[in-house]
């Protein structure tokens, strides 16, 4: 199969949906001729015109709120917030409006829109362009939260996000944009709430998200040399969360490591750990462990940023520490 990047895969999904459904419109800062700062929307304005692919002013509350209004009245906006850090400028629109309209109105009205944004440190962009606080959106009932880790998943999940009648926060990872992988040329969708086992194993379950999936796969290859057989479960969507696949894996291995780039406190990893503790604690041979970003802002200086990022250097010792429990 041909290989394309994660950014290209998302682009293909959006383009395919725009060809099929004229209700799909794009809004965001510098998404037009510039193609988005990560080139996810490259070429789409040239193909579909500036009315359908709209470069907005720096008015996050304005254009996210406008997306909500457009979705309520029959459109399917796919709206980009350049960095997740900037969602703070439109939190009212996301949390009080987009997430709640359907419920507050007793089902009279729906908000079928996709809010695209990205997380991830590692590009030297410091504390306001590198955050990974996607867990905030997991805390808000009414939102669906998507976390693709591969180009294949990114395309299929984006198609599903656009076709879904609920508001979706589509959380991309900026370090993955240039990563390549096999992606079918035809359109396909991946249902929400279906985790995928990215590596089968019998000794330890690693539930990993976003870039932590590949980092966990790398770590698994390393520890395999020492006879440790890790299973890697990628939830793919954090809301809804495929509890069944996670629990079945934990019941099989008896050990759980949760790896997510969010901060430690109240992060996605904390939620998954709590869920497993509630539902499967008697299957565990060892305490649950988390590999996350620390509870500090993202530092700028390269050695500090490298120390901040949760990767193989933290995963491998964590795996080994859990294997120390018989």
């Amino acid at each position, binding site marked *: 199969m041909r290989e394309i990047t994660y950014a290209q895969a998302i682009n293909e999904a959006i383009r395919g949906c725009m060809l099929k459904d004229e*209700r799909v*419109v794009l809004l965001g800062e510098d998404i037009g001729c510039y193609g988005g700062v990560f080139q996810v929307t490259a070429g789409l304005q040239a193909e579909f015109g500036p*009315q*359908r692919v*709209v470069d*907005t*002013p720096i*008015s996050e*509350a*304005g*254009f*996210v*709120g*406008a*997306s*909500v*209004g*457009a*979705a*309520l*009245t*029959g*459109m399917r*906006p796919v709206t980009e917030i350049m960095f997740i850090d900037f969602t703070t400028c439109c939190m*009212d*629109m996301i949390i*009080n*409006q987009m997430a709640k*309209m*359907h*419920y*507050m*109105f*007793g*089902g*009279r*009205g*729906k908000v*079928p829109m996709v809010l695209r944004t990205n997380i991830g440190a590692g590009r030297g962009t410091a504390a306001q362009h590198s955050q990974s606080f996607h867990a905030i959106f997991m805390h808000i*009932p*009414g939102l*669906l939260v998507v976390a693709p880790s591969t180009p294949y998943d990114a395309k299929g999940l984006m198609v599903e996000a656009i076709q879904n*009648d*609920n508001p979706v926060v589509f959380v991309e990872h900026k370090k993955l944009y240039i990563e390549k992988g096999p992606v079918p040329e035809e359109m396909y969708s991946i249902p929400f709430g279906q985790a995928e086992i990215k590596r089968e194993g019998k000794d330890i379950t690693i539930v990993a998200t976003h870039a932590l999936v590949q980092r966990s796969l790398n770590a698994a290859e390393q520890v395999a040399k020492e006879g440790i057989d890790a299973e890697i479960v990628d939830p793919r969507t954090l809301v809804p969360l495929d509890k069944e696949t996670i629990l079945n894996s934990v019941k099989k291995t008896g050990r759980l490591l949760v790896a997510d780039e969010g901060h430690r406190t109240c992060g996605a990893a904390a939620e998954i750990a709590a869920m497993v503790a509630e539902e499967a604690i008697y299957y565990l041979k060892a305490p649950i462990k988390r590999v996350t970003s620390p509870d500090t802002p993202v530092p700028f200086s390269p050695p500090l940023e490298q120390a901040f990022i949760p990767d193989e250097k933290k995963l491998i010792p964590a795996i080994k520490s859990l294997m120390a429990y018989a």
Partner: protein
Amino acid sequence: MKLKNEPLLALYATMLTIRLFEDRIVDLYARGEVPGLAHLYIGEEAVAAGVCAALRADDYITSTHRGHGHVIAKGAELKPMMAELFGKKSGYCKGKGGSMHIADMNIGIMGANGIAGGGLPIAVGAGWSAKWRETDQVTACFFGDDASNNGTFHESLNLASLHRLPVIFVCENNLYGISTCQIMHQPITDIAIRSTSYDIPGCVVDGNDILDVHQAAVKAVKRARAGEGPSLIECKTYRWRGHHEGDPNQGERYRTKDEIAQWKEKCPIERFVKKLIKDKVVTRKKLAEIEKQINAEIDAAVQFARESEFPVAEEMYADVYV
């Protein structure tokens, strides 16, 4: 613009329906039958009635926390509305939204809104949507004087003007953001001047003169429908009650009795009645009949709300997702 008798009486009936509905809420709230927050619109009826009379059934509105008047004027039914205020299952939002979230997309009501300034970007989106879908629907966006200090006001007017969207921004300047009077929250007297920053028409109207409001709205709607873009209408008005029912002394902590009395002298309904009688549009007898009929509708709505069931606990979990 000269209205015929029938539309004039319709304007009167809308204002009176809002007034009598709100008067009834005062009583029901005091009795404990309407829980939560009730932000009443008494004194401001001419704005909602005058603007919504300029709209079609398929046009949209966004509303505010003080939204009863807007949704009644846009055509909401009193029974499910009252039931919603009671928190009943038969309410507009199945009892999940209450006073601040009444919505009916079938008649273009995109929800009252609990966040000051929250409705403005949503109205822009409805306007944008009409443009994308190539309809000539117009969206009227209601908001208060203090919401014009929120970033959403500026972002929304800028976006709507930039893309010539069919939105009419209706500022209800009732002089107070809760307790904070206009001179304490902004350095200008006329909010309409802010329209110049966005290169759109702005006007100030007497918000207690329904014909003044209506005329401005008709002009703005015509412009919007013709694809010429948004307008800003500032309606100078006043709320007679406190910020919400339960506001101590009905707002006399921050307003003088004299000020309230002076505004009551300018009652939009009494003023309009005087004009209708003077112009021989209607007789006192006919007006009394209209009032009786509205009261009967409100009685029926209250009865409907009282007799309706509360939702059961499991219903909390429905409608989180489509």
